[in-house]
């Protein structure tokens, strides 16, 4: 980097010119522009894409929160988080298969089994996430940063293979919510059961999480540890427990996401976590890693990007599009939408 021009007047923060602000946020501007163009070309299709995207995006938001919570507190990318999500899917489908629930069962058993599926998958995933931390990350807390990243990858692979052993072939999930059926229409766009369901499950979880992190003692402990673990320890916070709690919360959300995904998608397979994980991670980075509302917003945006890409570039290209966006963000705007301007890099 050659010498930039340096203003002669010593001021604490030189005021930011519009040009600088624009350059800083060029990625978002371009994306917004693209959306506007697509809308102009085909309003109905675009609205439909947006709806689908927001709906999918809720799932990504839940998973992204897991990444962002963990990164915020120990500055580590929990590579195995996608697999935690996958296990959540597997658990809920297994429950439904065991209970022999089908779309033709009576309404009460269906609701009951969905609830059971939700709770058990959340428990399973959260336990798994905590276990992962204990086994793969905690022993390496003082090691160079490379080490836990590699154990994380190792853990991801191990879990993928657990998934593979469990279900070597993709399995179908019973369509308990009649996901393709319409409830009503908004601006000519069909709102399906699955969309409503996603909202019904996700929103309370998000609200609950934000309340927990923002208002409770435990949440405060998490935020304190994220800011400065040593100071937190000196204040009497049990840092180890707080970290485990963070993983627990992330796991709960991933488990819920897994259940929703199973109902939504109809099919589950052992490697769904890998791609889902990368997509959700993109969402977390887009929102500003470490920032909770950023993870949610990022998830929604990624969902919309995916559906627009599906329509206009074709489904085969969508993963590449998302990964390309991930690269662009990490290289040009690593702080994302709401993150701090750290030279995280």
């Amino acid at each position, binding site marked *: *980097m*050659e*010498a*930039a021009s*340096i*203003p*002669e*007047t*010593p*001021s*604490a*923060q030189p005021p930011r010119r519009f040009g600088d602000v624009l350059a800083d946020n060029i990625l978002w501007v371009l994306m917004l522009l693209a959306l506007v163009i697509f809308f102009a070309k085909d309003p109905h299709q675009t609205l439909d894409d947006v709806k689908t995207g927001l709906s999918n995006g809720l799932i990504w938001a839940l998973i992204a929160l897991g990444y962002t919570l963990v990164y915020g507190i120990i500055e580590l990318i929990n590579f195995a988080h996608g697999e935690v999500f996958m296990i959540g899917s597997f658990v809920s489908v297994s429950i439904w298969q065991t209970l022999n629930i089908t779309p033709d069962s009576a309404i009460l058993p269906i609701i009951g089994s969905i609830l059971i599926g939700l709770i058990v998958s959340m428990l399973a995933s959260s336990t798994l996430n905590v276990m992962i931390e204990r086994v793969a990350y905690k022993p390496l807390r003082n090691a160079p940063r490379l080490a836990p990243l590699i154990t994380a990858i190792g853990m991801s692979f191990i879990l993928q293979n657990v998934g593979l052993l469990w279900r070597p072939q993709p399995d179908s999930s019973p369509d308990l919510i009649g996901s393709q059926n319409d409830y009503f229409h908004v601006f000519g766009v069909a709102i399906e059961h699955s969309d409503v369901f996603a909202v019904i499950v996700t929103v309370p979880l998000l609200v609950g999480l934000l309340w927990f992190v923002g208002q409770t003692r435990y949440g405060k402990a998490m935020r304190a540890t994220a800011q400065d673990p040593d100071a937190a320890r000196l204040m009497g916070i049990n840092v180890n427990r707080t970290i485990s709690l963070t993983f627990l919360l992330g796991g709960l959300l991933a488990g819920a996401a897994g259940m929703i995904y199973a109902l939504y998608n109809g099919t589950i397979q052992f490697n769904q976590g890998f791609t889902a994980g990368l997509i959700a991670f993109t969402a977390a980075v887009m929102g500003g890693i470490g920032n909770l509302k950023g993870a949610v917003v990022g998830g929604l945006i990624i969902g919309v990007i995916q559906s627009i890409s599906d329509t206009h570039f074709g489904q085969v290209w969508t993963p590449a599009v998302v990964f390309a966006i991930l690269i662009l963000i990490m290289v040009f705007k690593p702080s994302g939408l709401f993150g701090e301007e750290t030279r995280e890099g």
Partner: protein
Amino acid sequence: MSVQAQENRADLRPDGGPLLEAANVSKVFGGLVAVNDVSFIVPRGGIVSLIGPNGAGKTTFFNCMTGLYKPSTGRVYFDGRNITAKRPDLVTKAGVARTFQNIKLFRTMTAIENVQVGMHGQLRSRVTGMVLRTPFNRREEKAAYAKARELLNVVGLKRHNELAMNLAYGDQRRLEIARALGSEPKLLLLDEPTAGMNPQESDELRRLMEKLRAERGISVLLIEHDMRVVMGVSDRITVLDHGEKIAEGSPQEVRANPRVIEAYLGSQA
């Protein structure tokens, strides 16, 4: 006159004028002003000390000089050229070398290899030459090896083939200096070179600095806390406190300066 020449300031000719000049350098981190409008010079062939209580901004200032930080305001001129915010490796190639407060040696490399890395910018072999070991490359590597040994001897380090991480603390500090010398600098920036040394070692270091000036014409700017060394070796001393220059002058002048005394005593309260 071209912009470049205007930038370089016509009055700083390479054969006259100060070697290093910092003009109104400030560095701000968010809300914290770490260095506030500091100006000073290092004359050619001079040994200048930068002192001040802990947290005064001395290392931050060094980092501004060497391109590790981009100054928020101000300029840095070296040997007549504007080096403000230039990339660190370019600053080194221009002739400014440094050591670090928290020794930053390449731990898994030997002492000789560390010095050889210090010489990196001076060596010219290309990758093809390295792979094929062309005569040019072989000559250059041989010369580099010999020079590395020589520099290690100059600083008094005997265990040339020892891994940097296995060296005694004093030797590590010496190695940092030898490594810095590898780039054939005109100016050596030493950041607390005698930290952790006993008086004997500190004296050796003091003599080394004088020898480097006398025999190689190397100027020195050093950050130091050891007042014996500072008083004994410096031509001039600049004192920083809370990021600002509070005094400057000969050792005698600075020693007697009430603001300086207060800064040190006050900050120990």
